[in-house]
């Protein structure tokens, strides 16, 4: 693995997203803005790649760079680059030494995990699903019919899954010229590194530097995410998308602005193009955002912005239709249990999740969520409600799939639940902190980011 080439690959995806958001006049501030650029870049890369595969043209690095160049020229001609976002939020909180030290510790933990990932930490799913598809894309330039045969030997690679993660892995493989598992492991860990940055940047204006830094450290040190991220699993992408969408919907209710809706759309599209449950998240977000935008004083104008929420399902449609045309089903949803089994499975799931959420690395986050529910119940500010509703509905959807699936519940609880439910923890903690601090008289803090049509809620 050549670090410089990996860096070029990462920079290319970031540029793709930054140009797209700049043209839409929707780039964000500070670290959360850079994460939104990256998320949008991965969405654009996935859509280009999926379109090429579905139309039979395959995937192309040159074609993608031509798109990046075209977007860059369009940005230059339209003057979009003149509206560069403020990146001052990236700086360390030098006035608060405790927060600075906490952030320094966070960076140290992230660097440890990143350097561990360069030794190839791929876990089962990362190896046999995502890195494998990336290798096929590298070898074949597409996903050939013999690979996508639903009765063929490669069916264990979960053929129906969307392609954002393997296409990003392919992009890195293509730059370094080989199918290096360490590169996939490193990219997975890089997704994980975005989480504390997003939490810090999103929380600091509302909860203050110390609590934001502590939340960033807690997320960085939350092993279930770090382990599976370096393992190449796609759940960390859902964690980024969920946190990004929850923060953007909260911000949109508080300060308004079309840009927040567009960035939230990018996160939801990222989820929808990464995993099947991500598509469920994108669909769940529609009524949540509709309710959130109605909370805004300029309700009727905001409702027009709901049209953006049609984008994630539209971007997912080509792949969904393609796998359906190939008779590729989703194993998790093909067989559903009866009502009597569902009751038993629900009780098993409840017990399993209770054990999970009260175990050592989870218990602190669980208690923060309980405190957040307390804060939400007593909150005078409604702006945290949409973020909380998004998370509650998403977790309910996950539980429904677990209950109705015919897969062995014990197997689900031991192999999938820590990854899938672990991905919700950063967003749960951050929304809980917003709910807790939402009722303090001193909130919001003075360094809250602003938008042109900011209206206090």
């Amino acid at each position, binding site marked *: 693995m050549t670090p410089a080439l990996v860096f070029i690959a990462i920079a290319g995806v970031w540029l793709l997203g930054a140009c797209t958001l700049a043209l839409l006049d929707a780039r964000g501030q500070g670290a959360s803005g850079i994460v939104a650029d990256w998320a949008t870049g991965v969405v654009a890369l996935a859509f280009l790649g999926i379109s090429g595969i579905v139309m039979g043209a395959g995937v192309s690095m040159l074609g993608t760079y031509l798109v990046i160049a075209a977007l860059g020229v369009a940005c230059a001609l339209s003057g979009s680059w003149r509206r560069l976002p403020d990146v001052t939020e990236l700086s360390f909180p030098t006035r608060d030494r405790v927060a600075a030290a906490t952030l320094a510790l966070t960076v140290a933990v992230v660097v440890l995990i990143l350097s561990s990932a360069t030794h190839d930490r791929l876990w089962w799913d990362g*190896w046999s699903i995502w890195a*494998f598809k990336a290798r096929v894309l590298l070898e074949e330039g597409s996903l050939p019919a013999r690979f996508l045969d639903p009765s063929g030997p490669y069916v264990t690679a979960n053929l129906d899954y969307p392609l954002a993660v393997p296409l990003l892995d392919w992009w890195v493989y293509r730059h370094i010229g080989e199918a290096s598992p360490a590169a996939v492991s490193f990219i997975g860990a890089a997704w994980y590194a975005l989480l504390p940055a997003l939490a810090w940047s999103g929380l600091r204006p509302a909860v203050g530097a110390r*609590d934001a830094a502590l939340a960033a450290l807690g997320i960085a040190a939350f092993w279930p995410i770090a*382990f599976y991220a370096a393992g190449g699993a796609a759940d960390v992408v859902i964690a980024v998308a969920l946190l990004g969408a929850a923060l953007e919907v909260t911000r949109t209710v508080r300060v308004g602005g079309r840009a927040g809706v567009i960035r939230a759309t990018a996160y939801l599209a990222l989820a929808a193009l990464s995993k099947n449950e991500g598509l469920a998240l994108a669909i769940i977000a529609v009524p949540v955002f509709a309710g959130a935008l109605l909370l805004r004083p300029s309700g009727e104008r905001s409702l027009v912005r709901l049209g953006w929420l049609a984008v994630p399902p539209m971007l997912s449609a080509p792949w969904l239709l393609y796998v359906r045309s190939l008779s590729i089903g989703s194993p998790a949803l093909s067989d559903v249990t009866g009502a009597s089994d569902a009751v038993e499975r629900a009780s098993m799931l409840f017990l399993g999740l209770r054990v999970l959420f009260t175990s050592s690395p989870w218990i602190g986050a669980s208690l923060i969520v309980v405190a957040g529910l307390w804060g939400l119940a007593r909150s005078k500010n409604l702006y945290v409600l949409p973020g909380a509703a998004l998370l509650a509905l998403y977790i309910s959807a996950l539980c429904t799939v677990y209950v109705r699936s015919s897969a062995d519940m014990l197997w689900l609880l031991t192999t999938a639940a820590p990854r899938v439910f672990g991905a919700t923890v950063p967003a749960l903690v951050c929304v809980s902190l917003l709910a807790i601090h939402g009722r303090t008289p001193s909130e919001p803090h003075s360094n809250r980011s602003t938008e042109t049509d900011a209206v206090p809620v």
Partner: protein
Amino acid sequence: MRVGWSSPRHSRLGETILRQAASSRTMGESILPRLARSLLLLWCGLGLWFSGERLLNPAVGWRPLEAEDRRGIVGLPLAESPSVSAIREVLARSDRGPGAWLIVYPPDIDEVSLAYVRSQLLHTEYPRLVEVITTAGRPRSAGYAGIITHPRVDFAGTAPALAEHRGFRSYPSIAR
């Protein structure tokens, strides 16, 4: 000396109590953020301890890549990982072109290990197809470039082995 609530000392105490009672709502509101910070500290402490313990575990954190094919099983101590290396070695020595190969295991191997061997070989040998079954299973295809048998699978009476490594033997193509 006056005693009781009317004394200056107790009057000040009463005022303090009344002031505290009046500000109880404000106090209540300040408890939650303090509680949240304490819980954040607890979460960070637990997370750092838990992550540190696992990063120091050589099977997870800083284990250098070994010669054996243990890719994709970080943290999963599966017994069959050396056999993947052996099969790949036999495949390399047999040199029968890009055709599909059949790998035959004894029927008593556990399903997780079999799935692991299958997923490892599908990935590492791509685009060559490698199908892994037990002697109780049925091959998917009608013909293979060759067959590799587990050390505990007896193929006596067939053609001489093309290659052997750690008890795994390869044989020329078979047809059903």
